[in-house]
């Protein structure tokens, strides 16, 4: 009987203690200690301990030195379920003061929970182009308040190894510009025993995805936004179809690295290009797999760049794809110290902090005051002197932008499950989904 009573007591104690444990603890947002503000940042880049974290640690130190009352608590959150964590914080109504977002639809979904920044950025607003500010405004509407400060301008382009071009008998200073010269260059490279296009296709075929984003920007030019309104389409566009046929031909002729299906894009394929295992690579313009990585590996003057390939059927030429804000920082509505939080954001977006951000990580800053020449990479100046055309991917719904387009690319070009026409129809379906959502 005594034993039974003991067991019952343990159970009765166990249930409430489990419930209390399940209730959890509340994370302090911008708790004040001794009159100084503690600013918490959630970030999906901070986990990159080799590439990004050292730069962020230095910038945080710089900001704290310049603002003695501010203590920064930088939290690196896992990339894969980052937005689930931010959503959980929103549902709980508390969390960090500053949250990093990707530009576009992923940030717009949080507009109701982030503060308008216009009054804070007013003194230095001209340092960043209105192209970027408009993109970071509520719902991407430039007439509405700004909700995010852009830290990077993102985009895609084709990098090439000048030494391998020379080895194949190509002019290293003259990048291919149209379909004919591009395919001829691929053929020459292949004949010279060089892999023409390094590829990362395992898991998600990002090489093809990014290549199409370059092509779409070039084909539709300034009219690319009309893909989101139904005034422009993939179906019925001769140049878009030609671009898909060209990619298919590249696979058939072996111009795309045959080892690509065994290679993940991040970071294996980029490392292969940096190790001269192929002549061309569809890379990013900021954050990773970019001019700095390849310049450091191959020599700053040994890497060439061209933004796209021109199609005779297209109305526009030499357009460069870009996202006005690759990533950025927003201040959450629950922050008790929005002024202090904005000081931190400003420290990242301009001045010495921004120069460190760009110089140490290879991020392409949208701030026009950064001294690009001092970085010592001629390629970055070449990239920045070209105007950007909006990346069509930023017009899509989350699901299509973050997965479905990759799957259609895989089906059409990697596993040959669907025809070019079906690929175009599937891609058109993503644009139709945007229409339906409105």
């Amino acid at each position, binding site marked *: 009987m005594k034993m*039974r009573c003991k067991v019952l007591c343990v159970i009765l104690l*166990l249930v409430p203690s*489990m419930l209390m444990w399940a209730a959890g603890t509340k994370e302090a947002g911008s708790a004040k200690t001794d009159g100084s503000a503690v600013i918490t940042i959630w970030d999906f880049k901070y986990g990159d301990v080799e590439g990004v974290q050292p730069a962020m640690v230095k910038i945080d130190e710089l900001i704290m030195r310049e603002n003695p009352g501010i203590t920064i608590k930088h939290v690196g959150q896992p990339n894969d379920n980052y937005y689930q964590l931010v959503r959980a914080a929103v549902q709980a109504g508390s969390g960090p003061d500053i949250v990093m977002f990707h530009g576009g639809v992923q940030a717009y979904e949080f507009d109701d929970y982030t503060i308008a920044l216009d009054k804070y950025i007013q003194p230095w607003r001209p340092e960043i182009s209105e192209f970027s500010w408009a993109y970071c405004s509520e719902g991407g509407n430039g007439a509405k308040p700004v909700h995010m400060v852009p830290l990077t301008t993102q985009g895609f382009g084709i990098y090439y190894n000048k030494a391998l071009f020379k080895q194949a008998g190509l002019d290293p200073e003259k990048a291919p510009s149209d379909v004919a010269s591009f395919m001829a260059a691929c053929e020459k490279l292949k004949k010279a025993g060089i892999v023409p296009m390094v590829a990362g296709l*395992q*898991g998600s075929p990002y090489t093809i995805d990014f290549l199409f984003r370059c092509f779409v920007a070039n084909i539709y030019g300034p009219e690319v936004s009309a893909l989101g309104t139904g005034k422009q389409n993939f179906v019925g566009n001769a140049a878009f179809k030609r671009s898909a046929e060209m990619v298919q031909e590249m696979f058939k002729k072996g111009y795309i690295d045959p080892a690509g299906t065994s290679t993940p894009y991040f970071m294996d394929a980029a490392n292969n290009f940096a190790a001269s295992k192929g002549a061309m690579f569809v890379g990013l313009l900021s954050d990773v797999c970019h001019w700095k990585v390849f310049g450091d590996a191959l020599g700053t003057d040994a890497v060439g760049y061209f933004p796209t390939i021109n199609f005779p059927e297209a109305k526009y030429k030499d357009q460069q794809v870009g996202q006005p804000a690759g990533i950025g920082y927003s201040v959450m509505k629950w922050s008790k110290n929005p002024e202090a939080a904005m000081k931190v954001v400003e420290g990242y977006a301009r001045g010495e902090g921004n120069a460190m951000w760009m110089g140490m990580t290879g991020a392409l800053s949208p701030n026009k005051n950064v001294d690009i020449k001092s970085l010592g990479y001629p390629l970055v100046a070449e990239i920045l002197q070209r105007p950007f055309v909006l990346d069509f991917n930023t017009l899509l719904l989350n699901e299509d932008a973050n997965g479905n387009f990759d799957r259609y690319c895989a*089906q059409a070009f990697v596993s040959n499950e669907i025809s070019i026409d079906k690929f175009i129809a599937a891609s058109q379906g993503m644009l139709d989904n945007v229409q339906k959502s409105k």
Partner: protein
Amino acid sequence: MKMLTPKMKSETFESYLLIAPLLVLLLVFILYPVIANVYLSFFKWKGMGKATFIGLENYRTMMQDETFWISIKNTFVLLLYIPLGVILPILISAVLREGLKGWPIFRAIIYIPNILGYVIIGMISSIMFRKLGPLNNVLIAMGLGSFALDWLSNPVLALNTLGLVYGVWLRLGFGCIFFLAAMSSIDDSLYDAAKIDGALWWRTFWNVTIPSIRFSIEFWVVLSFIEILARAFPFIYTFSRGGPGFATFTLEYGIYNEGFIAFNMGYASSWASALFVVCAIIAYFQVELMRKSSDVQ
């Protein structure tokens, strides 16, 4: 009518009290999520903020969604690997039961996947099965180059590789241990009697071993269905991410995709409800079959 004595009443109360913690956990972590999921499937909700009631719209969209039907097809293809996943460990266990030299080493090897877990095995498999991966390299080295296939890029091969690795190989070790344990409880006199009657190995296996472990087999089949319908996500996520294209995209993966990539929580709930219905139908038939065979017994 039989009246309960005070002692019996006290014992009944204590019994309920003893199972109360488990019941609370079941209510909180099983029953509540199931009901909440069905409720949420009638709403449009982005995982935060206000949910909007949209009636059966999510189900209507789901029925017209090509991806949903692809995921159903893929899930059912994976279910076809269950018989192999049951037969193989039983056969191996039957052989091992009779003693095998070096069995402890063999047992350790086949049990390794269970120690490592789905995520690690998924990652390792994604490397092993690459076109230029270790498996193909070994095949080529052995002069079997024609069998060195593009396992992960060909949609048919990718799905069947997933079926073989996840549905059969991954649980082979645990299956062998499980069935060996079941076979160890069979009375040796049954085998002796079969031997005296002149029964050969196959006949003994079919008429003595199988009937004796029938309940274990039924349990293993139920477990296999659960594994494929509701526990394959971490493996698929690390092995193929549902690709190439939608080749290994299952119902369960679709729930994740809609819920945590697209953040269409209401729509993801309608997929989860569909999975619940599929599981319920299968469970019903399994229970009925088990009941019938139990009655026959």
